[in-house]
């Protein structure tokens, strides 16, 4: 009997393999006491190796596993953003109480597992890999959110995320089933041909399926009105996990969002564009208005993330190469800006009794300029002021939107940005300007002091200050010399169109 094994392209699969092997190594070294100290280092090596392998496959698109995955520049660029974020999260996790609670090996292995899911998700080419990957990335996150076992909020956050996330996954799966039923294929390419005849609106089965898929993805990217979990989960989860989740999950989910809508459903773009545009607009308004009254910095960043997801969704709506470029650029810029902010929030959380309350950064400009500057740059960047990557990102998105005849959505972005100034600048004002209330010690300000020991030197620890400064420097650098990042993003876009 002749048995033909399928051809396996190990070179192109190498990033996924590296992560899988690294995951096992990290988990096992956590088990043995003498090796425990090496865990963060091993995780970093795993991430670095994966990043290296991804960079090696740059500009060399390949279909893998009988077309279930595709390693093209979009996948690589999104994976690199996720890995960068994970690397920062590992620095942030140094001396994090949650790591001790959960066990260093488990914590880091879960983080790598989530990254594995993201790398897979960015390459997904059919509904099955799509769903498997999204679960691979989500399940470790549910656990990571609850790793701070002594804090009620952390446990609540994990459970809430689990329930809401499962609801999202269920919706997604249901939608996928209907899409498969309507189009007769699980392949993105097959779906495109399957529904070409009747269009999206012609077949109620496909229409409902696509709508439910969109809702499922909206859950994952925290697009309003499916964002309700975001502020609570962000606030409760250990801050390094929040920082990782806020950026990397969004990036990976947007990658598959792009593949599903801008590739599989591209011919029917005019049918679904208005619906997604409406979602983007709602998200911009709800996110920005919701952030206004927040005193918890993590909640504020959560709501700001909802609004930012709305901006990014704008790039998806136009279903054009410029739109995808803009998304990738914005995600990269968003990663730098958010990571700078989280580094500072984490440092102040450990340094003061205020937790992540805005009082924790009051007077920071005089007290700890090395932290105040990164947070200031991050806030100005998220608000889209010039000389930051955030400005160029908005410029990119607005250009794509106007080109795609969605000028009204561009105006929405402008209006949303105005609202956002009120809360971003509130943080800046707290750092640099005389405050109205000197801020008495709060009874409970999001954190319970007894659970989190205070480290008065946290604001000087290099593993927090250096990443903060690096991310802030990148925000400014790509705001002044954006061309390298623009080219990076253009690669991603041109691999699809």
């Amino acid at each position, binding site marked *: 009997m002749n048995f033909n094994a399928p051809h396996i392209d190990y070179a192109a699969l190498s990033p996924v393999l590296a992560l899988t092997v690294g995951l096992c190594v990290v988990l096992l070294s956590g088990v043995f006491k003498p090796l425990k100290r090496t865990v963060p280092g091993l995780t970093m090596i795993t991430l670095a190796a994966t990043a290296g392998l991804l960079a090696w496959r740059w500009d060399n698109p390949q279909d893998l596993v009988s077309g279930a995955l595709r390693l093209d520049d979009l996948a690589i660029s999104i994976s690199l953003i996720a890995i960068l974020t994970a690397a920062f999260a590992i620095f942030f996790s140094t001396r994090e109480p949650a790591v001790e609670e959960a066990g260093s090996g488990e914590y880091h292995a879960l983080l790598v597992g989530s990254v594995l899911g993201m790398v897979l998700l960015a390459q997904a080419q059919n509904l099955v890999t799509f769903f498997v990957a999204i679960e691979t990335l989500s399940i470790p996150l549910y656990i990571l959110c609850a790793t701070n076992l002594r804090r009620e909020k952390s446990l609540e956050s994990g459970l809430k995320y689990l329930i809401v996330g499962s609801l999202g996954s269920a919706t997604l799966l249901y939608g996928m089933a209907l899409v498969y039923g309507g189009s007769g294929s699980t392949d993105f390419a097959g779906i495109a041909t399957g529904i070409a005849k009747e269009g999206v609106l012609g077949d109620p089965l496909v229409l409902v399926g696509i709508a439910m898929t969109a809702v499922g993805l909206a859950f994952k990217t925290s697009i309003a009105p499916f964002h309700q979990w975001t502020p609570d989960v962000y606030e409760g989860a250990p801050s390094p996990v929040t920082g990782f989740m806020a950026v990397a999950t969004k990036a990976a989910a947007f990658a598959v969002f792009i593949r599903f809508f801008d590739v599989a459903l591209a011919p029917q773009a005019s049918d679904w564009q208005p619906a997604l545009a409406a979602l983007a607009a709602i998200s911009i308004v709800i996110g920005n208005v919701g952030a206004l009254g927040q005193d918890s910095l993590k909640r504020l960043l959560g709501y700001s993330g909802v609004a930012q997801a709305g901006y990014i969704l704008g790039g998806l709506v136009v279903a054009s190469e410029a739109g995808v470029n803009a998304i990738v650029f914005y995600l990269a810029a968003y990663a730098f800006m958010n990571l700078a902010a989280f580094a500072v929030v984490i440092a102040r959380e450990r340094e003061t009794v205020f937790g992540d309350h805005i009082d924790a950064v009051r007077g920071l400009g005089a007290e700890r300029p090395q932290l105040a500057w990164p947070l200031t740059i991050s806030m100005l960047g998220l608000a889209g002021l010039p000389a930051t990557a955030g400005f160029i990102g908005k410029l990119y998105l607005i250009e794509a939107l106007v080109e795609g005849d969605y000028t009204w959505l561009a105006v929405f972005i402008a209006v949303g*940005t105005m609202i956002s*100034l009120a809360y971003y600048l509130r943080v800046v004002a707290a750092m640099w300007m005389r405050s109205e209330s000197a801020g008495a010690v709060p009874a409970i300000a999001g954190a319970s002091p007894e659970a989190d020991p205070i480290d008065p030197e946290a604001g000087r620890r290099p593993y927090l200050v250096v990443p903060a400064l690096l991310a802030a420097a990148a925000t400014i650098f790509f705001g002044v010399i954006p061309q390298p990042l623009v080219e990076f993003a253009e690669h991603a876009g041109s691999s699809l169109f």
Partner: protein
Amino acid sequence: MINSLLWTPLVFGFVGLLMPRRYAGWWATLGTAVTLGLAISMVAGFNSGAGLQDTVDVNWIPGLGVDYSLGVDGLNVFLVLLTTVLWVAGTAFAAFREQERPHLFFLMMLLGETATLGSFLAQDLLLFVLFFDLMLVPFYFLFGAWGSDREDGPTAAAATLKMIVYTLIGSLLMLVAAIATAIISAQDGGHLTFSIAELAQHPIGEGSQRWIFWFFAAAFLVKMPAFLLHGWMPDAYRAAPLPALAVFSGVLAKVGAYGFLRVVLPLFPAATVEFQEVILVIALASILYGSVMAFTQTNIRLVAGYSSVAQLGFITAGIFALSADGSDGAILQMVNHGLVVAPLFVIVAILAERSGTEDLREMGGMAVRAPVLAALFLIVTLATLAMPGSANFVGEFYILNGLFDSKIVFAFVAISGVAMSAYYALRLYQRTMHNRKPDSLPSREIGLRDGIVLVPLVLCIIGLALYPQLILKRTDESVQQSVAPATGGGAAKAPNVFTFQEYRGGKR
């Protein structure tokens, strides 16, 4: 040359962070002085017949069609000079005084200068928008962190936030509008470019011009500020530290008026003509409202602030007379007003330091022991009310002349503004310098330190009064080019100006 002019302040600002605290201010002043020297040499080498010169044009973000493109012509050359002059004065004034966190203060001052110069020099629409928005960042910090909280009003931080939100409402819409202009213009087969000169060659359709015009106008009118959009001004002016306020009021407000001349008139001529009267109504309302408010305010800063509203109304009216005369006068008046309002705020600061109050009712009688200060103030006052013989008189004359030619009804209303300016300027002078001196008030001559700041500015006013042609001669040609598309060539006195008919013909 033009690059070093633009970036010198910022470089000095960053190097200044390494200086010892007590020298930070002087180092910054040196930076502004070097910049002033560069600006003077640029004006000296300026060739009034050569159009855009000293240009720099580099592809900045090729992927997005954005160029780093700078240049000087008649429209901006004197505004650049004004910027550099006022910044020396403002920085030196601040350097003479103790500042909290001086490193940061002077870094922000110098960043402000670079951003302002950038928005004057930019010849790429997007670069212009970028610098226009960037101006806000340093002034947000300057006003918010070094400003004063009011007991019966908002804190400095709150007042500044209000200013930023107001201004950015306009600026962000302007960003959308700028991008839309370039994309719509490129849709007729051209390549995507934000170059203002190239965009002027390919005007966009009238329908698009309408909404884009208002997005730009919103940004510029808020910045000035014009009537109805001035809501941020009273709180921000009362909160701001005076050295920063002197340059802010003297220069930044002009960027808005300049934007009309640089961007709106050449790029959206059809909409400009269509909405000419609407803008003129806003301008006249600003003149009347600003003047009346300046009569009644008791806070000296607000008298100066509202008088600026009125003066900028005048400048806007001159621009929207859509004649070369009106716009010539507007540019002259922008420089004049900058030169008047900055020393005014310096004097306000001196008076406030002595009396411990900024309330007009509690001042008076300063002139008795301080004849030099009184004389300097008198010159500034006379220039403010556009006394014949002052350059302000020439400026207002040109503006009214242009307005009479095109819209005579509006001109009659605008004339009342001239009369009213005499009232509020003289009232300010009398209330502070004459009248009975409150017993508690010390009356001293100004010291050498303040004299060094004040006297050169007053000399500039006198110099310009003697020879306003210095500006008029060099700006006229560029102004005609800027106005020509909107006037259908009516203002075209020079033969080389291309007319509306030509452009219509060329289009078909």
